[in-house]
Structure formats: structure tokens, C-alpha cells
């Protein structure tokens, strides 16, 4: 049922409006001043607010201003028995939906409310349709409509039913463990266990004990037998995070297991065979570590049967609004709040930021914003301070000057849709020089579409 909030200091007006609106099938809450109205709209949603212009303490225009400041989108109809052109203009300028003089013609107010309600029903329908659409942009808990994420989803679907070892690469916070879980959930092993182990956090000996388990008395402090993660993950999936950080000795142990699919507990003599799918993940460039001799090439090739590379958030900014909607829903449930949207200004700030901490950082930011927001909309002042100080996008220092120049030219050409003259002007070089550099770096116009 649609709910209407009536704000009028005169009891007779409140009663009369309430009775009339109830006959029209609306649920009505009537309050006598602006403070109570503002309290009410932060607790529940109303389809329309009917606010009297002249009230002691806080007049109708002040109420309207506060509603807008809180980012609450409920349309406000200002009602008054003392109409002047000035107040009407002021009300409309402040964002009132309508301005109606008391007493009203029954047709006038009825139609104004009906129009608003119909508009809101359309809006709700639109939101539902969007939700339906967003399901297409979700793979279990992973969200993304960008071509890069759609390709990741496709790869997950392809590899999930196989037994292959998977290597997930991506910066911190890109959701590597979520992808590993998604593969497990979509696989035939989904009824088996999913065990995760953050290898990088453990010293070599501890990692060994965690992976393979130990017998009683295997080492000082081993007072009882303990099963390792490999055993616990039997019939399921073992997710080894931060694989690029493990020691050479651990690399050998893991390689042996991957080759033989069997192991012995520390201090044990019995060979244990397990059926475990290994999914490894790293935020490092494993191939580079191999080249530097820091990671065994044979282990690399064992792990790298199928590689899924997760793009950093800055490379899939079109997914940010979708992710925000997802996190808003999540934290509304967790905090019991009703934040419905994000203001354009706040969205611009989030879109401009380079998100070094990726999706995890975005999630933390939205959680912060939901907690501190007062109304039903996230405004810029609800965002953490670090976002408001514009930081330059970091430069990738691993690239050579030539590579940087090439990438910059491709980027500018892309932004200018391949227009050479405009790109040359932005780059501060003439067209001939740009053509020469394009030839030198083997840049074709179609590269700028990539």
C-alpha cells in the first residue's frame, strides 16, 4: 500500500487530510511538525509528503530543504492557505513537486498524488527490470558486465567441470578466492569441501605441516596427530593463495604432490592418496619470478594448466555502478539501513578513483558510506576522506619509456576515436610525427579500439 506523510501543525487539517486520503486507499502518517517528519522519513519510505508551508519551529520550505539535503527522493507537495507568488516560486525552486492552495479542489490534489504514485510504480518496475538484468551480470557472488569479466565468467564455466589445476592471477582485492569458490561451486566437487590456505602468511615449516599434516611427536609440540589441508580437502578443492610467496623447499613438496597425487604426513610412514583439485592464486607475475629463478618452472607449468587473469577494477570501471548496487544491498541488510542510491557527485568521485585495493577497497568504501549516511542517498560527504583528495593514477614503473609512450599514444587515439589530428594536438606533436611514431611502434588505428 502506498504511504503518505502529512505534515501540518493544525490538528483539524491533519485529521481531515488523513480521512480523505484513507478513503482513497492510502496508508497515512500525520505529524505536527518538521522535526517529526524528518524523523519519520528516515525510518520508513513514503510515496508522497504533503507539507504545510506555515508551521512554527520549522516551516514547510525548511522541511523541503532538509529532505533534499538528506538525499531523500520522496516528492514533496507544499500545501498552504496563505499562497503568494513568492512562496510558490521559492517552493518550486527548492524542488517541491507541486504547490497547492488550501482548501483544495478534490480533483486537484487527488490527481497530483495519483500522478506521483503512478510515476513511482513505473520507477519500481524499472528497478525490478534492472535487477533481472543484473542477474546476467553475476556469476555466483562475482559481479561484472564488462567484457573482461564476462570472459572470466565464461572461463569459469568452462573449467569448472574439468579436473584441471587452475592458476588465478590478479592484484590484491580483485576477488581471486571468490573465483576459486565459484569454480568449486560450479564443479562436480561442489558437495565436497572447499579449503583455503593463505600460503604467503606461513613460514616454511608451518606451511608443510598445514599442507600435509603431522603425526604425533613428529616435531616438538606435535602432541597429537593432525590432518593436513590436502587430506581435509579430499573429494573437494584446495585453494592455495599467495602461491608466489612460498619457499623453494615448499615448491618442491607441492610439485611432488602434484605429480604423484599422494603424500605422507610429517613424521609418518603411510602414503596417503587424495582426490583434490588444486586452485592456486597469486598477485605476483609468476612467469617473471620463474625468469628470475625465484619460482620453479616445472611447478609453474604444473599449476598453469588453465590461467584465469582477473582485471584490476581500474580496467573495468563500467562495473563500478553494478558493484556499488550489490554492496549497497549487502550492507543495507547488515546495518538495517535503507540507502537506495548514490548521488551523481558521489558516483563521479568513485568512478574517478583508481582503486589500488580493487573490489575489496570499493566494498570497504561502500560499507563506510552506508554506515555514515543519514538519508537514503550516499552523498560525497559520506565517502572516506582519502577519496576526496584527488590522487594521480600511479604510473606503472615496470614499463620502459618507449612502452609508456606507445601505450599513451594508443590511449589518446582511443579517446579521440582514432582521429589523428585531434590526437596529435593533445599529444603536442604534429600529425607527421604522430604517423612516424605509430609506424615506429606498429600502432594501427584499430589498436585504439582494443
Amino acid at each position, binding site marked *: 500500500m502506498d504511504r503518505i506523510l502529512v505534515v501540518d501543525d493544525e490538528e483539524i*487539517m491533519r485529521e481531515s487530510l488523513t480521512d480523505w486520503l484513507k*478513503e*482513497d486507499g492510502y496508508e497515512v502518517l500525520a505529524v505536527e511538525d518538521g522535526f517529526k517528519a524528518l524523523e519519520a522519513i528516515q525510518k520508513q519510505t513514503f510515496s508522497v509528503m504533503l507539507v504545510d508551508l506555515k508551521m512554527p519551529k520549522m516551516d514547510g520550505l525548511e522541511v523541503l530543504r532538509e529532505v533534499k539535503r538528506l538525499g531523500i527522493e520522496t516528492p514533496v507537495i507544499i500545501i498552504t492557505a496563505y499562497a503568494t507568488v513568492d512562496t510558490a516560486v521559492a517552493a518550486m525552486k527548492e524542488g517541491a513537486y507541486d504547490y497547492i492552495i488550501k*482548501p483544495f*479542489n*478534490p480533483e486537484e490534489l487527488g490527481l497530483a498524488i495519483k500522478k506521483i504514485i503512478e510515476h513511482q510504480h513505473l520507477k519500481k518496475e524499472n528497478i525490478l527490470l534492472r535487477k533481472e538484468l543484473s542477474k546476467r551480470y553475476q556469476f555466483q557472488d562475482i559481479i561484472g558486465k564488462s567484457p573482461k569479466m564476462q570472459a572470466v565468467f565464461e572461463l569459469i564455466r568452462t573449467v569448472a567441470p574439468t579436473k584441471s589445476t587452475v592458476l588465478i592471477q590478479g592484484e590484491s582485492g580483485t576477488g581471486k578466492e571468490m573465483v576459486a569458490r565459484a569454480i568449486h561451486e560450479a564443479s562436480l566437487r561442489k558437495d565436497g569441501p572447499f579449503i583455503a590456505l593463505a600460503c604467503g602468511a606461513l613460514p616454511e615449516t608451518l606451511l608443510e605441516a598445514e599442507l600435509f599434516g603431522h603425526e604425533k611427536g613428529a616435531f616438538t609440540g606435535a602432541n597429537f596427530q593432525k590432518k593436513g589441508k590436502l587430506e581435509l580437502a579430499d573429494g573437494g578443492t584446495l585453494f592455495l593463495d599467495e602461491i608466489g610467496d612460498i619457499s623453494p623447499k615448499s615448491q618442491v613438496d607441492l610439485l611432488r604432490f602434484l605429480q604423484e597425487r599422494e603424500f605422507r604426513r610429517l613424521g609418518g610412514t603411510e602414503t596417503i592418496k587424495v582426490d583434490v583439485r588444486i586452485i592456486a592464486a597469486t598477485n605476483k607475475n609468476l612467469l617473471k619470478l620463474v625468469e628470475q629463478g625465484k619460482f620453479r618452472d616445472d611447478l609453474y607449468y604444473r599449476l598453469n594448466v588453465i590461467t584465469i587473469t582477473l582485471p584490476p577494477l581500474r580496467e573495468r570501471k563500467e562495473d563500478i555502478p553494478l558493484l556499488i548496487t550489490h554492496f549497497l544491498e549487502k550492507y543495507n541488510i547488515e546495518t538495517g539501513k535503507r540507502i537506495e542510491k548514490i548521488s551523481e557527485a558521489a558516483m563521479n568521485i568513485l568512478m574517478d578513483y583508481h582503486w589500488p585495493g580493487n573490489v575489496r577497497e570499493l566494498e570497504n568504501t561502500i560499507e563506510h558510506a552506508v554506515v555514515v549516511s543519514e538519508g537514503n542517498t550516499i552523498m560525497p560527504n559520506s565517502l572516506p576522506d582519502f577519496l576526496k583528495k584527488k590522487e594521480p593514477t600511479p604510473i606503472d614503473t615496470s614499463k620502459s619509456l618507449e612502452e609508456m609512450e606507445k601505450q599513451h599514444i594508443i590511449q589518446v587515439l582511443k579517446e579521440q576515436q582514432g582521429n589523428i589530428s585531434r590526437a596529435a594536438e593533445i599529444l603536442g606533436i604534429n600529425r607527421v610525427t604522430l604517423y612516424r611514431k605509430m609506424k615506429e611502434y606498429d600502432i594501427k588505428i584499430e589498436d585504439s579500439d582494443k
Partner: protein
Amino acid sequence: MKSIYILPLGEIAPEILTAIKTELTNVFQVPTKILMPVANPSYAFEPKRCQYYSSKILKAISQYLPHDGLRVLGITEVDLCTPVLTFVFGEALLDGVAAVISLARLRQEFYQLPANMAILINRAVKEAIHELGHTFGLVHCNDSQCVISFSPNVLSVDHKGSNFCPLCQEILTNRIVEMIEPK
């Protein structure tokens, strides 16, 4: 069996009262009786608007509901309004015991047209059923033919029928049965 009571507020033409009595009995399926008239509702007069507040009349006529009364419907010739509306053809409280209708704006003469008793009776019957419908918990219906649809002007009163749509009729019947034969 409980009855609906019609209370004339001032002098009301007998043919109007009789027509309303007959139609209410038909539509609500409960006996309808006409009470002795009471004086014009001068207590509800609002001098600034030269009209009468319907809510004040509603409060007053509730006291005239007899012990065996289910609902009381006041009928008046005075022009009614509420503090927020410029006029009303009638008023009732949702799930209340009293309703009131005014004949003032249902008359052709109000719109500078020749008097027509048949039209007046037709409109008065619809408004009486409409307002009493509210007292049984019905809200405005979106079906413009349903008698409980909202009528902001006399043209829309003429447009709608004098019966409830099937859905509203079912709700109404259930409500009345519950009241007359409580479980």
C-alpha cells in the same frame, strides 16, 4: 436484524428518502429505516466559507444511531466541505458508523440548469451507497463504473453506476455477513 438508518437533516423531499431507502436495502441486503428528521446542522456552519463542515456533522449524527442500528446516513440540503477540500458530495469515516451526503451539488440548479428530480435521485442514491460503502471499509475503486470510485465532480457521479464492481461487492458482502452474524 440490524438496520441501516437514514436521518434527514432538515427537510428532505420524501421521494428522495424513499428511493434511497429502497436502493440501500437492495444493495446492502439489510433492512433500511428512515428516522424522524432533525434540525439543519447549523452547528457545522463555517462563516468564512458559507458552507458546513461535514466532519462535525458526522460526529453529531453518530449519536442518533439506534441500538439496533448498523449504520446511520445523514442527508442534508446544505453545501458540505472539509477543512482541506473546497467541497464534498458526502463524507464517511472508513469503518465508522456514520456517513453524510449533501444534495446541494447534486441538483441541476446548482449548475444553472433546470431542476430534474430523476437526475437528483439517481445521483443521491449513488452518493448514499458510496459513502456507506466507506463505512464498511471499502476504499475508492479504480473501476470508474464502480459506485465506490472517486467522483471529484458531478459528471463523474453521472458516469459511474449505482452498483459495486464484483470485487468490491464481495468484500462488502463478507464484511456485512461478519457484522450481522459474528463467528
